[in-house]
């Protein structure tokens, strides 16, 4: 696996001033290699969202450096940062965040619209991605005509349309039932296997378990990094470990079991 870095955080600090200064992130350093699958976990207020916003080029750090796609986010002008966000970052949100009056195809093509890519090319690319997420026959449907799982597939296709350095998913399965969740996470695995860099923010263990490693945040700092990399030393060795880790998360039973198995099958 190529270890080129997709996103790097170097001693990043983000301070909000709401009366007293609040350190949402307090000296975080993290490298996200290209092609990796990272999960970020942590309780509310641990700095997950802030990290998300920084990596997503939506925000700039108070101190330290955030490098996305080789470019320092903090030093860019707003316009450049927006451009970087459009081309190098793909967002998948908990609430899908599709444009309500645009159909599936147009939603997928939207990021390319803002990059000035012409209509025919956009539509071809969007159609192709919709096929890949299994919605080739739903291209003309509006979001409210699609199920939650289908909407999230559209969102994933949209995130991938500009071939970004990283896909940022914020609780991607938070609004989905367990079956649909598994489908979406399988799809993530599929794209990851095909080389997409994934960064998933979640508070659910079984979702995080799909990743190569889990970054645990607490009070704005990295508490620990849990390495789940199985690619090198074989799946069997890791599986039991994951099983025990999963147990505290209550219902992480058969649903997580089977997709995980499939993912490993894919990666091997």
């Amino acid at each position, binding site marked *: 696996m190529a270890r080129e870095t997709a996103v790097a955080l170097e001693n990043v600090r983000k301070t909000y001033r709401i009366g007293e200064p609040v350190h949402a992130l307090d000296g975080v350093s993290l490298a996200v290699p290209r092609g990796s699958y990272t999960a970020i976990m942590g309780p509310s207020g641990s700095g997950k969202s802030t990290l998300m916003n920084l990596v997503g080029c*939506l925000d700039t750090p108070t101190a330290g450096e955030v490098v996305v796609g080789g470019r320092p986010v903090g030093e860019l002008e707003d316009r450049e940062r927006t451009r970087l*966000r459009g081309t190098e970052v793909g967002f998948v949100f908990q609430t899908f965040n599709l444009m309500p009056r645009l159909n599936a195809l147009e939603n997928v093509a939207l990021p390319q619209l*803002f990059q*000035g890519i012409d209509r025919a090319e956009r539509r071809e690319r969007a159609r192709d991605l919709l096929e890949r997420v299994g919605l080739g026959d739903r291209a003309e449907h509006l979001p409210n005509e699609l199920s939650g799982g289908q909407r999230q597939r559209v969102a994933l296709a949209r995130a991938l349309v500009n071939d970004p350095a990283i896909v940022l998913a914020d609780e991607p399965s938070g609004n989905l039932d367990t079956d649909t969740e598994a489908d979406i996470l399988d799809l993530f695995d599929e794209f990851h296997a095909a080389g997409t860099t994934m960064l998933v923010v979640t508070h659910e263990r079984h979702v995080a378990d799909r990743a190569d490693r889990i970054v645990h945040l607490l009070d704005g700092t990295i508490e620990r990094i849990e390495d789940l990399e199985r690619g090198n030393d074989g799946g069997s060795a890791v599986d039991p470990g994951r099983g025990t880790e999963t147990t505290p998360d209550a219902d992480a039973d058969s649903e997580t079991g089977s997709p995980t198995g499939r993912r490993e099958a894919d990666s091997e």
Partner: protein
Amino acid sequence: MNPLESLRLSWRSIRGHKLRSALTTLGIVIGIAAVIAFVTLGASLQAGIIGDISPDDRRNVYGWAADPDTEGGPLAGAQPVFTPDDLDSVASQPDVAAAYGYATIQTQAISNGNETVAQGNGLIATGPSYIREGRLAEGRQFERGDREAVVNPAAANQFEENVTIGDELTVTILGGERTTLEVVGITDTSEGQSPFEGFESSPRVYVPTDPYYVEQAAGLGIGGGSDGSGNDTGAGSENGTGTGDARFLAIIIEADSAAQSDIDAARESATAYLESEQSDASELLGDDLAVTFQTSTELLQQLQDVLALLRNFIVGIAAISLLVGSIGIANIMLVSVTERTREIGIMKAVGAQNRDVLGLFLTEAVILGVIGAILGTGLGLLGGYLGAQYIDLPLVYPLEYVALAIGVGVLVGILAGLYPAWRAARTDPIDALRYE
């Protein structure tokens, strides 16, 4: 993002709120429609007035002597000063094609055979060419010195048995004197032939000044011909110089053509002669009596000025309604920006630049403005058309105003959309994505 794409997306969101968009647009529709309708009506009214001046009237210059400070229309404060000799001399001046007097002879009644109809200002004594060949429906002009007359259809048809060419009418002049005249022509319209008469329809009988006015003047001692503008009798007895020296209240001169330069030349040479020692009129002219020469167009200018003022006033009110309409657009755009905060957040998250967002909202406001302007223009033109039909005016569409209306629609859209669009553009995507 290219403008076509903005247009497509904006149009989509306008269609997403059909009723709201329609109501927003309505403000502009009403404003523009009001402006266009009133401007159309004003232009039509103006054309109607100018249209009343027949083409052959345009080379005529109407003159009378009055106190220069007198205000009012034709013949206001006019005094009888022009003698027949003056008229002949003016006619022989360079640049003057013809000149003749104008006077009304008050009558009591007109009889056709046994039938008598009461009529007040019945006889108009003037020169033969006052009734132009082109205005005659039948017959010919009367001739100077003959007891002949041209009547208009209203006069001809007021008897049970219509007057035809060759009929002899008996006129009872004010004072009881009777005179006869032979009808030699009938005009094509009952409207007045010049501003001296007024343009409204009424029965009129046109006769030569000689013999009718001359006789009349001799009978009263002086030009008793009156159109009711007063002072004639006093002036008459003062200025009376005996039989055959009738003085006319008004003079009509004809320029060589309707061109402004010819009209000015005719006017100048006539004025120059009348004010010179050679003329009889100059005896009476002085500080408080000067000759005024005006064309029909000039005489109507005053009326047109009033009309233009009125029109501007109404257009001003309509413009205020347009302003209200644009505030409506601004208001609805602000609501729309707030309502679509999340969409703005999504667009920015997937790479929309501030100017893209600005462009989208601005385009939306401009579309509303332009649609309003187009519909308003259509409605206004229709309103103007119906109004013109109702008042029976020739329809004139002021096309430059239509172009202006569309321009105003765009401008209103931009002005009304600017602030909301700017607000949308500077929305923080992080807040926007969190917005419920």
